[in-house]
């Protein structure tokens, strides 16, 4: 493992890749910091740039964007009291009041350092767990993959924000949209209406760009013209030693950070739910366990620590199912999956055997990006604050142009550009109807995996469903999926005041 990691670092430390990663982290932080832009958007928009790069350079750029954007959310959470991304909602609770008390730099410093620690912790966990899980997953056949896909689908649809029915509907609709094109196994054309362009179905990237970027622009057209604009307060970096907090304060936060890191990692591994949930969960538990729970929400450092450690620990967590099983843990890793496929690499257990050096280059890129993030975000803070002031009515049209370029770049056809508009309108309709978009995306990606493996499994067993239930791993996941749906149904009918449930639902 050390040899491979050394090779990975060797690849990452070339001038070309380092430069790409510095740019990636900086752009990522901006996308995380500006409310309305997200990590998903950053990775989706930059994916077309990697087409002409090799897989090592391309994937290094994409993971550096992921890390920058996940952490960047804390800047606007603390300075503007608006979470830049859903994963930094809980950072606002105490980061905002700290800023009001004049401890803005300390809040930012704490947030950035614990973002760093959370990310590093999760990447190390990823490096140790992933090869083991991959070894185990090598034995998986169609039955296991089908059941894991079904389990993941039920998990995301029921846990997504808002009503469970709407979440499930979104997941099923995403699955339905994925059935457009040539069917697996049998190769008949479905729902193509004789358009040759639809034979291959909708490209994953057009769906994502449409749902997340184009929809956002339409949303701004609706609301962005109102005059109020939050303005970032200036922070003074004078007389700041280190990262703005003392060693004693740091030591006091270690138990809190460890707990939050574990929560973030665990929630991140579960497919479908990620940093958007784990930061709130970690915050609540940290508040419950604190000696002075009353000070939470009034500017307690512990709140920022819990939220930021947990959301960044989700990075390694979400990468685990992606790299070992090819199942994306959230929407960002869903695009990363697209990034792998564009370079002709199929994530899954075989990745660790056939592409060992690449896997360790990704690990190295993750670690190096995290270190870059720590220094760039803190010491470049003033530049990022300036960027928060770019008016939205200038920024978003430019992003739309980049969306068009990205979609066109997929295969140089206007069909894909029209697709992003169609999915943009759909994404906007989802927002208006209160339907969460994330289950749609996961349904769209995991749907074909479930269908293909179902058909393959049935072919292997001559049409006998029983093999899905006699296979122990497959049966476990199907059982878990069923139990989970029943549990959700029961708690929907008899609403109990479970704190976790409430947080997940809001």
């Amino acid at each position, binding site marked *: 493992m050390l040899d491979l990691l050394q090779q990975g670092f060797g690849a990452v430390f070339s001038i070309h890749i380092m430069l790409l990663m510095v740019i990636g982290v900086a752009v990522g932080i901006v996308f995380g910091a500006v409310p309305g832009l997200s990590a998903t958007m950053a990775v989706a928009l930059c994916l*077309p*740039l990697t*087409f*002409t790069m090799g897989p090592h350079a391309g994937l290094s750029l994409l993971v550096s964007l992921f890390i920058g954007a996940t952490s960047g959310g804390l800047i606007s959470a603390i300075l503007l009291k608006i979470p830049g991304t859903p994963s930094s909602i809980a950072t606002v609770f105490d980061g905002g009041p700290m800023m009001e008390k004049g401890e803005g730099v300390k809040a930012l410093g704490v947030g950035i350092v614990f973002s760093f620690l959370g990310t590093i912790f999760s990447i190390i966990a990823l490096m140790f767990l992933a090869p083991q899980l991959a070894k185990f997953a090598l034995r998986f056949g169609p039955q296991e993959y089908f059941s894991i896909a079904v389990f993941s689908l039920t998990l995301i649809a029921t846990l997504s924000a808002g*009503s469970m*029915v*709407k979440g*499930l*509907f979104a997941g*099923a*609709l995403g*699955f*339905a949209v994925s*059935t457009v094109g040539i*069917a697996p*196994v*049998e190769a*008949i054309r*479905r*729902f193509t209406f004789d358009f040759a362009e639809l034979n291959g179905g909708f490209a994953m990237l057009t769906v994502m760009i449409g749902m997340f970027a*184009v929809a956002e*622009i339409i949303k*701004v*057209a*609706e*609301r*962005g*013209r*109102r*005059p109020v*604009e939050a303005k970032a307060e200036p922070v003074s970096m004078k007389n700041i030693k280190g990262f703005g907090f003392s060693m004693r304060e740091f030591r006091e936060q270690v138990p809190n950070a460890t707990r939050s890191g574990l929560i973030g990692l665990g929630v991140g591994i579960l497919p479908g739910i990620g940093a958007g949930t784990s930061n709130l969960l970690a915050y609540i538990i940290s508040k419950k366990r604190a000696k002075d729970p009353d000070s939470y929400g009034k500017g307690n450092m512990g709140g920022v620590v819990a939220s930021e450690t947990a959301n960044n620990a989700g990075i390694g967590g979400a990468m685990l199912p992606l790299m070992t099983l090819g199942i994306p843990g959230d929407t960002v890793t869903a695009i990363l999956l697209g990034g792998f496929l564009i370079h002709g690499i199929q994530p899954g257990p075989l990745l660790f055997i056939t592409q060992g050096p690449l896997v360790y280059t990704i690990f190295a890129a993750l670690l190096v990006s995290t270190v870059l993030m720590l220094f760039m975000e803190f010491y470049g803070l003033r530049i990022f604050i300036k960027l928060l002031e770019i*008016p939205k*009515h*200038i920024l*978003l*049209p*430019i992003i*739309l*142009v*980049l969306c*068009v*370029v990205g979609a*066109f*770049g997929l295969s*140089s056809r*206007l069909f894909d*550009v*029209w697709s992003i*508009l169609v999915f*943009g*309108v759909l994404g906007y309709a989802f*927002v*208006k*109807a*209160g*339907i969460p978009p994330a289950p749609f995306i996961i349904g769209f990606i995991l749907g074909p995996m479930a269908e293909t493996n*179902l*058909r393959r499994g*049935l072919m292997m067993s001559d*049409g006998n469903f029983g093999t899905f239930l006699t296979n122990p791993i497959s049966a476990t996941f199907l059982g878990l999926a069923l139990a989970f749906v029943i549990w959700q149904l029961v708690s929907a009918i008899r609403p109990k005041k479970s704190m976790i449930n409430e947080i997940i639902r809001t």
Partner: protein
Amino acid sequence: MATNKKTELAIAGCMLAVGIGYLLMTTQLPHHSGIDATFVPYLLSALLCMLGALHMLAAVKMPQAVQAASTPDEAAGEPLDAKAVVKTLALIVAYIALLKTVGFPIMTTIYLYLQFIVLTPVNQKVNHLVYVLIALITSAVVYTLFREAFDLMLPSGLFGF
């Protein structure tokens, strides 16, 4: 977001319509005995219709008066700008439709300039000169960058270079 009974009924109606539409399209697919390529679409149609119906049921049962928790925008008394949405959509459609014939550099400049104007907040003045400059520079930079650095041939259209 929307908790208004009428809105929820409309949403449920749309959900049901999508489910039924998908079911009708599925029935048109070639079919043979046993598990075939229509199996999953039928399953999904049933699921979509069932969820639509469930939501319809919930919306019908909803008390009329639940309006307190409407969308934050409506609660704050800020009217939503439907005109800007329609204009934005029209601009994007025109942009994509003319992209090939007129070309990326010209269309992007025009689109950006007009879109900046449409999205300018009500309390800010439209600065034509700055908008034109930003539109021109962005268009030129993106076009050249992708053509030269990333080998992506964006439609050149009337420019022809």
